[in-house]
């Protein structure tokens, strides 16, 4: 029997690859290998509804467990791949089993960065947030009245802070940069979320460096700041970004550069090996970029299935993202990298607005807070290469739909 296409990593990219492969009627056999004991599942709800306890686990699954067998796809969950041997076209599992592949698709994802153990990063009561197991460990600790300390003011930290407030915890968030979301958004967006969290009772401490986590009876009990100040905590969530899982790719000798380097066909430096999602980096507008998002994982997985089926396609999808915090729906379209100007478009209510990012005259991206029209029509405007003047979009009387369709 011919060797299958082997997919290593069972996340969004893998699910999307398999779904497209099935939809295209491609008869090549597939083998999906995942380290977690679950079929591919949605990660975005982990820091939102799943942590809140409003979504049962099975509803996270992108396809039901039985679906894979129904499609004739072999799966091995709870199985780690330790090595890739490109010369033999084999992957080696942690139990030493060698599995032949015809083509290999790496969907290994990313992992949450943690704090070094020397400063308390490994203490009981300190969590990172990336998987079902992470949430199942931390959710019982999210009890009303307890003190949560969040290290890092990125989207995951902010989402967890919102859930914690909704569950009645006291929340302090410490961000070492001058402002929350500094790495990913303009000051106007940071201002919006600072106010949102302050209004919901989160104590935000920006431009604040920590030196170490403190322990009492072998469990985390607080943090010491550079100023010497101590903040008490019953539990700590570390949300300081993610790193690509590239160990397998490196062991296979694949080119890596902040992720597994892939072409516009999602092909790595070995023509039999593809990569998709958080684990890979690719060229966009002259930069080597890596995205941690559902859109990117899904679109790249989908693309690889099309490439394997012989379609002439290349990756150029417009990125989009979202976040939910309290009653705010944030929707982002485009990439704001390299912007040199932003304008704010006021929304219909006090809690809605959008931030439009430009480089010169070119519209790059939009952050829309409770402003689905700016997101939906803005997406069309960017997709069709229109670059309305910043003054035009900042004018709330401008009809975005007309601008998008015009």
């Amino acid at each position, binding site marked *: 029997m011919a060797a299958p296409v082997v997919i290593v990593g069972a996340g969004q990219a893998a699910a999307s690859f398999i779904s497209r492969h*099935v939809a295209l009627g491609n008869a090549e056999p597939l083998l999906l290998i995942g380290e977690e004991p679950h079929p591919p599942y949605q990660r975005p709800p982990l820091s939102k509804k799943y942590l809140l306890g409003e979504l049962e686990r099975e*509803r996270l699954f992108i*396809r039901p467990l039985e679906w894979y067998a129904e499609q004739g796809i072999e799966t091995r969950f709870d199985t780690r791949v330790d090595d890739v041997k490109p010369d033999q076209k084999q992957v080696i599992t942690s139990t030493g089993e060698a599995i032949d592949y015809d083509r290999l698709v790496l969907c290994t994802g990313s992992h949450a960065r943690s704090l070094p153990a020397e400063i308390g990063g490994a203490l009981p009561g300190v969590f990172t947030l990336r998987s079902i197991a992470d949430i199942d460990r931390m959710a019982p600790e999210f009890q009303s009245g307890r003190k949560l300390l969040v290290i890092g003011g990125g989207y995951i930290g902010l989402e967890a802070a919102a859930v914690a407030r909704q569950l009645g915890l006291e929340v302090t968030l410490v961000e070492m940069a001058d402002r929350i979301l500094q790495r990913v958004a303009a000051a106007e967006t940071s201002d919006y979320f600072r106010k949102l969290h302050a209004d919901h009772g989160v104590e935000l401490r920006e431009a604040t460096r920590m030196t170490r986590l403190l322990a009492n009876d072998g469990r985390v009990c607080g943090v010491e700041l550079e100023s010497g100040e101590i903040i008490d905590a019953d539990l700590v969530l570390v949300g300081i970004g993610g790193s690509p899982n590239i160990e397998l790719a490196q062991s296979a000798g694949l080119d890596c550069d902040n992720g597994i380097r892939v072409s516009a066909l999602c092909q790595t430096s070995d023509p039999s090996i593809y990569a998709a999602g958080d684990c890979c980096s690719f060229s966009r507008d002259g930069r080597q970029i890596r995205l941690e998002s559902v859109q990117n994982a899904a679109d790249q997985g989908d693309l690889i299935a099309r490439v394997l089926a012989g379609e002439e396609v290349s990756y150029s999808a417009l990125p989009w993202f979202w976040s939910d915090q309290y009653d705010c729906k944030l929707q982002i379209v485009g990439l704001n990298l390299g912007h040199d100007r932003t304008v704010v478009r006021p929304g219909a209510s006090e809690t809605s607005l959008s931030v439009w990012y430009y480089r010169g005259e070119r519209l790059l991206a939009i952050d829309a807070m409770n402003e*689905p029209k700016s997101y939906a029509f803005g997406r069309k405007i960017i997709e069709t290469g229109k670059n309305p003047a910043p003054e035009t979009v900042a004018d709330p009387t401008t009809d975005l*739909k007309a601008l998008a369709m015009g």
Partner: protein
Amino acid sequence: MANITWKMEDGSEISADVKDGLNLMEAATANNVPHIEGECGGCLSCATCHVFVDPEWLATTGEVDEIEDTMLEMTDVEREENSRLSCQIIASSELDGLILHVPEPE
């Protein structure tokens, strides 16, 4: 429980019993209905679960709210009066027998 039927453009059909409380995007992906992707998981950000509700069922499936109405502008196949994002239709016994037509992007 509701029995839902998805009708494809090529005349094929898929029917399934859907548990109360599940949304019909989830039900579609679980039952391998083509062209329903639901990338955003039902949070109104992707518009990849577009369906046309059979006209007889329009009243029963309820109103389109403002966000859904806006997101329907983003669908691959252009919206019509009976367009819905299926993640916003929640299964219940009232919808037993519902027919959805699945648009096929080019």
